[in-house]
């Protein structure tokens, strides 16, 4: 368990560095879609909510089910809404091509 936590810290650190490097390159043009996309990705927390809701609990089962289900609803709305709106926004970004009137 102790070692696992240390590994987790390494993972966090590396992911943060990758995040900085990758996201620094995102053009300011796309900062709004960036925020909605990272929001959707962040909703991966749904994975934790799913396990919490579905797993068997010897005690506190009702609490886990109630909180877990609300958590799934909140996260799923972010996933569905976040990806939808990001794609909608990105479809609007068009370069000025020769076909422009």
């Amino acid at each position, binding site marked *: *368990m102790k070692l*696992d*936590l240390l590994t*987790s810290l390494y993972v966090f650190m590396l*992911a*943060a560095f990758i*995040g*900085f490097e990758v*996201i620094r390159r995102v*053009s*300011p*043009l*796309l*900062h*709004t*879609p960036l*925020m*909605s*996309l*990272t*929001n959707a*990705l*962040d909703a*991966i927390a*749904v*994975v934790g*909510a*799913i*396990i*919490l*809701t*579905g*797993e*068997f*609990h010897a005690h*506190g089962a009702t609490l886990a089910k109630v*909180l*877990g*289900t*609300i*958590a799934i*609803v*909140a996260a*799923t*709305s*972010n996933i*569905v*809404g*976040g*990806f*939808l*709106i*990001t794609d909608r*926004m*990105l479809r*609007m*970004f*068009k370069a*000025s091509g020769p076909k422009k*009137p």
Partner: protein
Amino acid sequence: MTNLPAMEHVIEVTYLIATALFILALKWLSSPKTARRGVFAGELGMLLAIAGTLLHHGLEYKWIAIGLVLGSIIGVPLGEVAMTAVPQRTALSHACGALCVTLVGTAEFYLRAPNVPPFLMGVLSMEVILGALTFTGSLMAAGKLQEVLPQRPITYKGQNFVNLGLLGVAIIIAGVLVAHPDKTHLFPLIVGIPLVFGVMMIIPIGGADMPTVISLLNSYAGLSAAAMGFVLDSKLLIIAGALDGASGFILSVNMSKAMNRSFSNVLFGAFGQEQTAVAGAKEARPVRSATPEEAAGILSAANKVVIVPGYGMAVAQAQHKVRELYDALTKRGVDVKFGIHPVAGRMPGHMNVLLAEADIPYDKLLDMEDINGDFPQTDVALIIGANDVTNPAARTDQSSPIFGMPILDVDKARTVMVIKRSMGAGFAGIENPLYYMDKTLMLFGDAKNFVGAIVRELGGGHE
């Protein structure tokens, strides 16, 4: 509760692939050409991760299914809001993400207590404190952006003391819980106090600071999700949270740099206090104004026009009229570009999305750094609903509250035209000397109607 080892491996592999896809999604987002591929990668990663999770042995699916279906039903309309409502939608989604994290954290505590090892209790506290304050803070921000709540900053004496005190108490209680996780009656406090703090934190923040605050909340939402990853020992969640946290952090730094303010200044020093000092000095000074005909005449005689949009354009929903103006001028051979300040609007990139929605090609939308060199060769700078980001006092007047803030150098253009409702001061309540310059023409009126009138004069548009 014995898991099939083979299945566990399958699940872990789906998480691994999902992680790679998430990083690729952000990488592809760097350019508009590959960005949609990025969204697809993100979706695929998400599907894989959820499918993998559902394979876990011994899950009871009833409530999971109800949650997933209900969430999707709520999510679709949230994905189809108008582009002008994107800032409040974004704030709302920060709130949803934070709600999920807070609820899972709360349940995890009660399921594990009193056997919570210190490190775990520490990250669990961080998860619920950050989650809870992001939840109410984002709801407040969404309320202000939707104008359900007053947009003006509300300040009172000792505000910072109260706010920091609240946060301090929550952290101390979290510390007690780390030492004595069996004191379960203390746990509601480390959820409840941050919930209150979230509200108090946003009360003194005005609309012009929203881009920074939304980015900061984004960062908090990411960090709380990463903390949840530590609690659940999920590498996937740690990485997704770290990516989101990094993204929010970078955007917050960008935004506060663009306003020449530090984080603490945005959070703890509302512009509100400086307002009163400036208000007294304001007296009527002569300005030159012009009609749509005159404006159209000057614009059509220009070679190079830079349009500077601001929040006022979004409020007036003028972006489609601006597009007609762009078309009419381009047809006449005028070179039209857009100069976009990082904090124009209510969230990072807000103006770009609105103008892209109006079908303006993205290569005409230029960042502050890219456009500023162009102003001396620009015939007309047309400002639509922007104020403080064009204020030359930021460069010259040391006593100005916005001194040092990087601005769009519109005053270097040969002619400046400003579409504005009235002579009222901008959001920060600061006088703009640009309006009194000899080369400035004030175009008084509603942005949408005025731009429409110019377009009619130019013989374009479709009405």
